[in-house]
């Protein structure tokens, strides 16, 4: 049974190379291929993709799109529509699948026209030192989860065709939107905890992290399209508990000019932030030193989501 691995890539050509190196070590015996959809120039594409051993083996194809015209949804749609496989596995260019990843995902498929199989994604152990950075991004998903993150999942091509693929109007959360449509269509989800993808741990500067997280403002579109997402939100409005605590802290600080007791509203945020690095004395000092930067980051996230709420006319913070 043919399997196609679809990878959208933008701005991470070296990590894409490392992903291809990891894919070249897959143990799956069945025929499989990789389709990379990217917006790199011809020189980078030649260096990273055309010269890669997977291309020499005829397993790697790539589709170049105009720089600045891509989005994860559009790139994944281009990728699966170009796929030869009856099964389409998705992963990302900042991931490192274990050698048995594809084999174990495919082995978990019982109905190749209906089952969705979700693997386990964890922060890459080779990059765990970066967790010491004040601002980092990585991912942990323990299947079966509700959001079907596309860093580690396999869809039947027939199902993708029935669902119309990813919603290209979604700037972020396009995988979650597809998950809700798949579940509404009665799709059976299989957890494959031994199909492991290691997700990069990337540290950012504070401005870089704020920029990176601004994309989450578009999640309001997802909530508008799929109101059932609210069932998983904190108080059906807040994306996570940190956002609730930050919003309460801002309200408390604003109200404290009239009544100092309102400052108590900031206490939950301060307590959460102080415990962010663990319970030891050094961890507390580190967390307190990081508190100003974390506050700015989370305030920017909440403000961005408020802006998204206005744009998409539904409240999500």
């Amino acid at each position, binding site marked *: 049974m043919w399997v196609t691995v679809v990878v959208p890539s933008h701005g991470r*050509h*070296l*990590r894409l*190379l*490392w992903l291809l*190196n990891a894919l070249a070590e897959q143990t799956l015996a069945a025929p499989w291929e990789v389709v990379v959809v990217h917006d790199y120039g011809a020189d980078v594409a030649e*260096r*990273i993709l055309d*010269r890669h051993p997977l291309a020499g083996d005829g397993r790697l194809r790539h589709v170049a799109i105009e720089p600045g015209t891509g989005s994860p949804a559009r790139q994944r749609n281009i990728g699966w529509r170009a796929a030869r496989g009856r099964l389409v596995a998705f992963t990302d260019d900042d991931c*490192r699948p274990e050698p048995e990843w594809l084999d174990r995902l495919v082995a978990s498929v019982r109905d190749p026209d209906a089952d969705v199989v979700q693997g386990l994604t964890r922060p890459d152990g*080779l*990059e765990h*030192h*970066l*967790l*010491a*950075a004040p601002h980092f991004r990585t991912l942990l998903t323990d299947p079966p989860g509700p959001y079907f993150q596309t860093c580690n999942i396999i869809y039947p091509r027939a199902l993708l065709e029935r669902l119309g693929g990813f919603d290209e109007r979604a700037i972020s959360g396009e995988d979650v939107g597809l998950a809700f449509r798949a579940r509404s269509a009665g799709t059976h989800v299989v957890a494959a905890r031994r199909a492991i993808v290691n997700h*990069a741990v990337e*540290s950012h500067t504070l401005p870089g992290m704020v920029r990176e997280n601004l994309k989450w403002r578009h999640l309001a579109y997802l909530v508008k399209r799929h109101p059932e997402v609210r069932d998983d939100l904190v108080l059906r409005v807040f994306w996570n508990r940190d956002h609730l605590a930050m919003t309460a802290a801002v309200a408390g600080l604003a109200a404290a000019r009239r009544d100092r007791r309102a400052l108590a509203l900031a206490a939950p945020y301060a307590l959460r932030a102080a415990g962010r690095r663990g319970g030891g004395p050094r961890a507390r000092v580190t967390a307190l030193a990081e508190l100003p930067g974390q506050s700015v980051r989370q305030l920017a996230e909440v403000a961005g989501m408020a802006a998204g709420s206005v744009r998409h006319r539904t409240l999500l913070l």
Partner: protein
Amino acid sequence: MRIALLDDGGVDALADALRAAGCDVAVVRAPPVAAAEALLSRRGFTGPLSHVPVLVARLRAGFDVAHAFTAVDAAAAQAWRRLGGGRVVFTCRETLDRSGVADRRLRLATLSRAVERSDAVAAASEPVRASLLRWLAVDAPVVDPGDAAAQLRLYAAAG
């Protein structure tokens, strides 16, 4: 041509060979600050880094070529080039593998800049060349660190 060899603990033989070939060579040293390195390491940074400001300052003594042997030193030499310095040559001596290309903060950034923004890049051995190709997609020539004539050709290629 004034050549600065950025000392990583193994440039003396190359310096002697280049001097014997008639070059004006200086070995530029900037020792890391142990306390700063310990703090940076605890915060997940690659190292050593604390010597970079002094290294850049010492390069401003007026060189035509800065030859670095570590990714961080290459990044420092590139900073010197942006301040009006000369060419930057990077010879990679380290055999790279996946566990060491992004294991610490600034590691990937310094490695990728070292190979993509230096004026010339070389590998110190065949295993290093193969690892550069596999992990950074750079096909660098192997240049024997003790071969002064080959090094001079590398500096000319950087120009």
